């Protein structure tokens, strides 16, 4: 990028066959990714999945073992970090402690010899509503303020591509919501391409146009947030992005529109268009909020799948909804989120209940069930629920 000029708009990013090996392990293998210009793209995954490494490769802070990186069509693989039209908001913010907030923000402008760096830095600080603190040192600011300075320091350069490395991780919930909104607004206002790396699925879903779920150095699934949530392709996506009830069984019959799966003797129907595998052993699932709880056995309905009877083993109230854990013999434990339409729970611990859901809400995964142990997902959601419950109890005890 030349001196003295801004990028006039966001640029697209292309990763072609990227591979990154560190001594002893492979962080990323054969990653192909295209992020269109002007989009808000989120790389979502657990820690150690390679998402931060991907970001550092794009920023030029690491070199790929193989593959090419293109920004706006230009190959930048061999360019040094300071030559790339990219800026990063670091997880640690990395604000220079020996400079004032203003000098921090003007740093990039000065290096590129852009005219009027101080005025532009003030403008950027106004955008994040921190101009009144321009002459403080970063250590004198709160975490949220530092985060906004880090953001201002990056966007003031109008990079073709802005990289965000879990920048909201250190903030409390309220501030995080506020910053999410601000980030989104800024992105729309200035029209930059944002690449946001996060492990927070809610954050990714609220902010990004497109999410790529990454696991073990590979992209598991990519798409719009809603599409990813409603139709996950793998058990990992199904459980990392929200919670899921997953069942495994053989396909017993196939029609032109749906497949029927035998789950421990209970026949579950999934639409053909929502099933990634249509024969043999398959894993199917349904989101907890799609389940309806019945205290009596539901009447047969070809439009709904039914399961039961099961026993309620846990009820936890969370304001908007109530979470029930239902143990269904030989199937496992299912999670149900029920909206609190009436006062009090619909069923108490120990009650016998049935579950049903609209056939169209089920989904079939692409995973080979043989790869993953049966009901691994159920176990996972159970532990999550138990953790939530225990943390809730300790919170209540403290209060």
């Amino acid at each position, binding site marked *: 990028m030349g001196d003295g000029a801004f990028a006039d708009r966001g640029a697209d990013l292309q990763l072609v066959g990227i591979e990154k090996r560190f001594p002893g392990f492979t962080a990323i293998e054969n990653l192909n990714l295209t992020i269109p210009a002007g989009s808000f793209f989120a790389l979502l995954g657990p820690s150690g999945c390679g998402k931060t490494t991907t970001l550092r490769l794009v920023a030029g*802070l690491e070199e790929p073992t193989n593959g090419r990186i293109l920004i706006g069509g230009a190959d930048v693989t061999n360019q040094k970090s*300071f030559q790339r039209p990219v800026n*990063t908001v*670091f997880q640690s913010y*990395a604000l*220079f402690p*020996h400079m004032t907030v203003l000098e921090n923000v003007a*740093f990039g402008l000065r*290096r590129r010899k852009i005219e009027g760096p101080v005025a532009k830095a003030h403008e950027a600080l106004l955008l994040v509503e921190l101009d009144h603190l321009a002459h403080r040192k970063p250590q004198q600011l709160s975490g949220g303020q530092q985060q906004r300075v880090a953001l201002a*320091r990056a966007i003031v350069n109008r990079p073709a591509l802005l990289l965000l490395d879990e920048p909201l991780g250190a903030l409390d919930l309220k501030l995080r919501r506020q910053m999410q909104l601000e980030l989104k607004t800024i992105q729309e206002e200035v029209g930059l391409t944002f690449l946001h790396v996060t492990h927070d699925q809610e954050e990714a879903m609220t902010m990004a146009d497109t999410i790529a779920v990454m696991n073990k150095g590979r992209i598991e699934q990519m798409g719009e947030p809603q599409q990813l949530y409603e139709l996950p392709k793998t058990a990992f996506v199904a459980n990392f992005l929200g919670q899921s009830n997953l069942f495994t069984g053989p396909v017993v019959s196939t029609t032109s529109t749906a497949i029927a799966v035998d789950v421990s003797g209970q026949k579950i129907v999934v639409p053909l268009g929502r099933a990634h595998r249509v024969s043999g052993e398959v894993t199917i699932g349904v989101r907890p909020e799609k389940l309806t709880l019945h205290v009596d056995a539901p009447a047969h309905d070809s439009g709904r799948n039914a399961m039961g009877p099961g026993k309620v083993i846990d009820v936890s109230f969370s304001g908007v909804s109530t979470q029930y854990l239902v143990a269904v013999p030989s199937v496992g434990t299912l999670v149900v989120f029920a909206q609190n339409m009436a006062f009090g729970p619909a069923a108490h611990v120990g009650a016998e209940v049935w579950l049903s859901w609209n056939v169209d809400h089920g989904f079939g995964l692409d995973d080979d069930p043989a790869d993953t142990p049966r009901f691994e997902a159920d176990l996972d959601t159970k532990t999550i629920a138990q953790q939530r419950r225990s943390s809730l109890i300790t919170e209540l005890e403290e209060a």
Partner: protein
Amino acid sequence: MAFAVLASTAPSTTSAPSSDPVARRRSPVALFLLLPGILYLVLFFLTPLVSLLLTSFQAPREFGDIGQYDYAFRWQNYVEVVTTYWPHIVRSFSYALAATFFALLISYPLAYFIGVKARRWPLLQSLMLVLVIAPFFISFLLRTLAWKQLFSDESYVVQSLKALSLLAPEAHVTGTAFSVIFGLTYNFIPFMTLPLYTTLERLDVRYLEAGNDLYASPFQVFRKVTIPLSMPGIVAGTLLTFIPAAGDYINASRDFLGGTGTQMMGNVIEANFLVLQNFPAAAALSILLMTVILVIVGIYIKRSGTEELL
């Protein structure tokens, strides 16, 4: 000495919460515990200092022998030492400055390598630190004498340089400004390297990455980020080198690396005290040396703006 100076500037930023009632309450136990230290300072620092100050104003005894002086207020002693020894005073500070400069030039990359680049190999890091300190295992005097040998006219070093016409046939290395500054630099390098290492070892490389990300070339990152962040180490290292180097009299002595034209303040103080028995002149020079160093150090710390980094 240097640490005392550094420490004395630190409270300017940290003394703000003095309203804390616990900190303000005077405890007899604390005073009691401080007593040995205070006593020590009074006996071995304050008393000699006062004695030195009084000596510096002494006048020669009328009809007395050489070395006999009476207490007086003869401020002319100061005028006399400055007019007589001003070349030595200038030389002391310029040699010390040169030695500090070269020591910094050599130590910074060394400390940077040990403290930043070698972080991934802790064993190498410790080994290199040991190598930096290793010269201390041999006496300062012996090491300086060894250099005298190496730089003597008959040494292989000088002979080879002459054979290669890199040195004029009649030239000498010992007894020159070069050999004295070389000796000072060599002897004080560990004092420069260790404080630099301690700050660079804590340097967060994420700041350097942020600099790179913000379009700063490696050189610009070094100048705008690395240097300012390692300022505490630079200040401590330069003070630990400059202060003792300015008062050093071993390297510049004729018995070691110096010659008649390279005498520094330390040498004339030694000569006045031990040879000429002109105690007031020696004392006045000592006080002068101390004052000038204090002033220089004060200005330096103020200018380098490291109070808040310390």
